């Protein structure tokens, strides 16, 4: 390698680019997480050049029905991109991604210099993991609405129920400004914030939103035995109304994923199932370390408690696992009756087979799930960078 390599020249350019954005001679296109989300929803084609290291890529990547991929770590491209030019299609949009943006800017720049028209992902996978896309699910009785906030990169789903200028949030993520700004924009005051259970895969924004807005923060007491803060105990039969037309939010004790897991029936039409029941999978009982103890609870919730509910209820879960679970409008929902027909986890007649499905051969546990639980209990207070790092990767709250 001579001292004045091609790379050094690129590097100098890279620094110049960093210092003179806008004045750069070569066009580098930026794509935001919101724009990538639209491509997922519209099932568009996109060629993703992911320049993170191989293990990070294999663990977690941007998923789309018609996305194709090439994974070459950026540190293998420091001498130039000539060797991979042949592997990059000329007829597709090309998006370069990395962990935080820096390396993808560098590689996108090199590809642009080589004559390609490419985009880099603004904020990298960090931004992708944090992006929330609000989707309106339905109008409610007397003018209310229910919105689903799709955390597309991580598969987390949270909800805002609105009626007559008042809002309730369910399973809010730590991107608290998104909900607060959204409520402001639609002219609603956040009155109640619920967590269906103590989350193990992501850091809850519930407590922080309640502090910022003066709302009441509700948690199931059986999940909250170790929390360090005050909360309102959420128990079976609790009935909370918002707006003076009383949109009903009815709590339904549904243990199994955790001992305290609670579902909600909203407006007698929607079943917010938390991490108990998903569209194409069911909750796993092991993330608080008690799989064997909680299998019976999970079975009873899914096969008895939920069975007694109307099959017409629309199930709105707290997660999706795979991109195929998204409806055409980007939302994730299905009729309870349909799930009783089609969801494999609801159709295992033999109890011992069910027991082995949910306790054996489980997927790996979510990244840093113990630390995430402790954060949600208020026991530790990691800074924002640490929180991001703890949440990196896919959610793994389900068994199929």
């Amino acid at each position: 390698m001579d001292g004045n390599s091609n790379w050094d020249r690129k590097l100098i350019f890279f620094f110049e680019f960093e210092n003179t954005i806008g004045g750069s001679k070569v066009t580098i296109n930026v794509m935001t997480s919101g724009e990538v989300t639209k491509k997922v929803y519209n099932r568009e084609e996109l060629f993703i050049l992911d320049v993170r290291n191989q293990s990070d890529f294999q663990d977690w990547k941007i998923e789309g029905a018609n996305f194709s991929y090439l994974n070459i770590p950026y540190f293998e491209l420091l001498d130039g991109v000539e060797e991979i030019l042949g592997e990059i299609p000329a007829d597709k949009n090309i998006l370069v991604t990395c962990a935080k943006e820096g390396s993808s800017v560098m590689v996108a720049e090199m590809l642009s210099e080589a004559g390609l028209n490419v985009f880099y992902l603004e904020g990298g996978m960090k931004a992708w993991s944090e992006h929330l896309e609000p989707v309106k699910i339905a109008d409610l009785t007397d003018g209310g609405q229910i919105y689903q906030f799709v955390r597309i990169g991580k598969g987390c789903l949270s909800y805002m129920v609105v009626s007559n200028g008042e809002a309730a949030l369910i399973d809010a993520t730590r991107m608290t400004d998104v909900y607060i700004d959204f409520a402001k924009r639609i002219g609603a005051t956040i009155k109640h914030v619920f967590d269906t259970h103590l989350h193990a895969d992501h850091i809850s924004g519930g407590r922080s939103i309640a502090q910022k807005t003066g709302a009441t923060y509700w948690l199931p007491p059986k999940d909250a035995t170790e929390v360090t803060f005050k909360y309102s105990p959420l128990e079976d039969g609790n009935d909370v109304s918002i707006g003076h037309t009383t949109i009903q939010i009815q709590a339904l004790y549904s243990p199994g994923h955790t001992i305290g897991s609670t579902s909600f029936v909203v407006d007698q039409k929607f079943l917010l199932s938390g991490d108990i029941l998903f569209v194409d999978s069911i909750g796993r009982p092991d993330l608080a370390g008690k799989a064997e103890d909680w299998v019976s609870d999970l079975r009873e919730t899914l096969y008895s408690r939920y069975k007694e509910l109307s099959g017409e209820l629309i199930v709105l879960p707290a997660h999706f696992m795979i991109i195929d679970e998204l409806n055409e409008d980007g939302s994730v929902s299905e009729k309870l009756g349909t799930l009783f027909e089609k969801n494999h986890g609801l159709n295992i007649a033999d109890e011992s087979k069910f027991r082995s499905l949910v306790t054996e051969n489980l997927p790996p546990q979510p990244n840093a799930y113990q630390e995430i639980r402790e954060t949600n209990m208020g026991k530790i207070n990691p800074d924002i960078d640490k929180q991001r790092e703890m949440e990196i990767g896919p959610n793994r709250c389900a068994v199929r």
Partner: protein
Amino acid sequence: MDSAKVLDVKGLACPMPIVKTRKVIGELDSGQVLEIEIHATDKGAKNDLAAWAASGGHELIQHEEEHGVLKFWIKKG
């Protein structure tokens, strides 16, 4: 650990930790050891340095964490 050079890349954003490491290791002789210091919380740099060393034929001979600083010793291949 006897290292020929110490490189501090604490606080640098990707791709700079590897860019600098690569440059400095280029100036060493084969068999010489470079010590690299990063923030222990910078998981990205940590993983990338290990993967880069492996792919470049260098040997990651030791790493240790002390007071929030992660030190790597890489022997040039």
